[in-house]
């Protein structure tokens, strides 16, 4: 009895000691530099934004005006429009990246002539800056001189004013966004596809399953973690987007392609810091309200597997 207790005690003491040294090896101060930066340049501005969005603010002076900025944001049609546009832009780009990205990844993991070339060329636009891409497409999509409409004309089609027609400008930019960001989606999907054990496909082949059946009941469910990553990354990027829209149309024509990101910048430029910050809080709420349930759902699925 006594020996047993001392044995347990000794064991506990040893455990405590090794734990002690283990702690020593993983010091908490390693968190410190990141924590300071995060606190000062991320957490504090985020918390401050809730207060400043309720003020008329000049960076030096602020006057508390309650919900006025929010009322203005949702009452003025062009500001409200940016809210709708943000949702359209986020879901269109994200949906297209999932569908086209998966299709291309399936194509590029099959035995295909010129596979490596295709993989690199799809990734290439990721490396070009968004501003560069914006300027390039401004030239290519010019309604009169542009190469795209010139090519359509030889086919007998009168091309639209891609970036100058208010009805389609936002969707055109979404298309450019997909063109630029597709490489990352394809890369993630290829990684997901390669990780699927080949035995499943062999078994399906023995069973004589059709290609579509194989895709639907093997590829699609097993590539789900990659789909989750693509959805999360592209939705976050799409909802926050600013650069590409600013470089192509600047939110125009009119306010037809304004998103919350460009409204924040316009209001900042005009000196309406309170209203700009309210836009930021709206963006924060939109992104959180959409991303938190989606990431919870995707995580749950992964656990079930």
């Amino acid at each position: 009895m006594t020996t047993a207790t001392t044995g347990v005690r000794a064991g506990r003491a040893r455990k405590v000691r090794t734990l002690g040294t283990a702690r020593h090896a993983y010091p908490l101060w390693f968190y410190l530099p990141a924590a300071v930066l995060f606190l000062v340049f991320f957490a504090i501005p985020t918390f401050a934004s809730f207060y400043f969005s309720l003020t008329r603010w000049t960076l030096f002076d602020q006057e508390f005006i309650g919900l006025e900025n929010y009322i203005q944001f949702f009452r003025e049609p062009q500001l409200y429009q940016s809210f709708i546009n943000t949702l359209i832009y986020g879901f269109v780009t994200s949906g297209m990246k999932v569908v086209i990205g998966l299709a291309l990844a399936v194509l590029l993991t099959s035995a295909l002539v010129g596979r490596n070339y295709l993989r690199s060329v799809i990734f290439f636009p990721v490396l070009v800056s968004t501003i560069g891409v914006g300027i390039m497409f401004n030239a290519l999509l010019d309604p009169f001189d542009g190469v795209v409409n010139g090519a359509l004309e030889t086919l007998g089609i009168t091309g639209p004013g891609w970036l100058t027609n208010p009805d389609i400008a936002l969707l055109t930019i979404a298309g450019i966004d997909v063109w630029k960001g597709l490489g990352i989606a394809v890369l993630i999907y290829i990684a997901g596809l390669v990780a699927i054990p080949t035995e499943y496909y062999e078994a399906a082949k023995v069973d004589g399953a059709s290609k579509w059946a194989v895709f639907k009941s093997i590829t699609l469910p097993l590539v789900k973690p990659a789909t989750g990553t693509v959805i999360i990354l592209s939705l976050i990027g799409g909802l926050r987007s600013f650069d590409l829209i600013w470089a192509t149309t600047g939110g125009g024509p009119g306010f037809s392609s304004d998103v919350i990101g460009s409204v924040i910048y316009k209001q900042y430029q005009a000196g309406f810091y309170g209203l700009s910050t309210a836009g930021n809080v709206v963006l924060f709420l939109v992104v959180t309200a959409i991303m938190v349930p989606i990431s919870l759902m995707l995580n749950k699925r992964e656990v079930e597997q």
Partner: protein
Amino acid sequence: MRRERIMRWVLGITAIVASIIIFILPFAFIVVQAMKTRQEASELSFSWPTELAFVDNFIEVITQRDFIVARAFVNSTVLTVVSVSFLVIIAAMVGYVMQRRASRIRTVANFFVLAGLIVPPAVVPTVWVLQGVGLFGTLPGLILIEITFGLAFSILLFRAFVSTIPRSLDEAAIIDGASPFRIFFGVILPLMKPTVVTVIVVQSVQIFNDFANPLYFLPGDDNATVQLTLYNFQSQSSNQWNLLFMDILLITIPPLVMYIFFNRQIVAGMTSGAVKG
């Protein structure tokens, strides 16, 4: 069998033709325009230049407005190199302790990493904080911002990778009496090389190509970055397409070189972190 092989060729060639139209031609367009004289480039047509002005355009872009593009290149390089160096070390430290040691701080840190991934930064209040610490409109200020905004994603990648390093290695170092500092920099960090390379490439491209943060936090011509000068250049001289495209060509070279050198590692590191982590 034979039909399948024909299919493979048909599909492959279709894909290659499509890729040339969709991806190669736009870049060929940039290169061709950058070679043209101002007048020819303003037509925006996809024709071969009658007169090659590649070198002239290059010199004009570089020397324009007191070498502003050259200065911007220096600024962007300093910004990228300094930010990424600190980012790698700071994020690796967090990823390492986070994976190895369970504590209440870890729960909090986890929450902040997720928040950092999702939450859009509050820009004007960040300007206000930067002014408060006296770093608004300075390169060091923007460096701190870029490090902060890059932390969440980098920590995730590092943390996922540390879980593949066996604990027995740390324990051996502990028994040898190495200090935590030694263990991390001497044992762990060298083992994390694949992820370090991935973070370096991904974040360098990201920071070098960043437009929104310099626009907000580094206004003015004095220490403009390449993306800002390109943007300002566009709004000032919309008729000089030849110079604009030359500028785009120039600032695409650094990311491109990075990609060509680290192509394989970036793919490996991204996939291990992004899909499993």
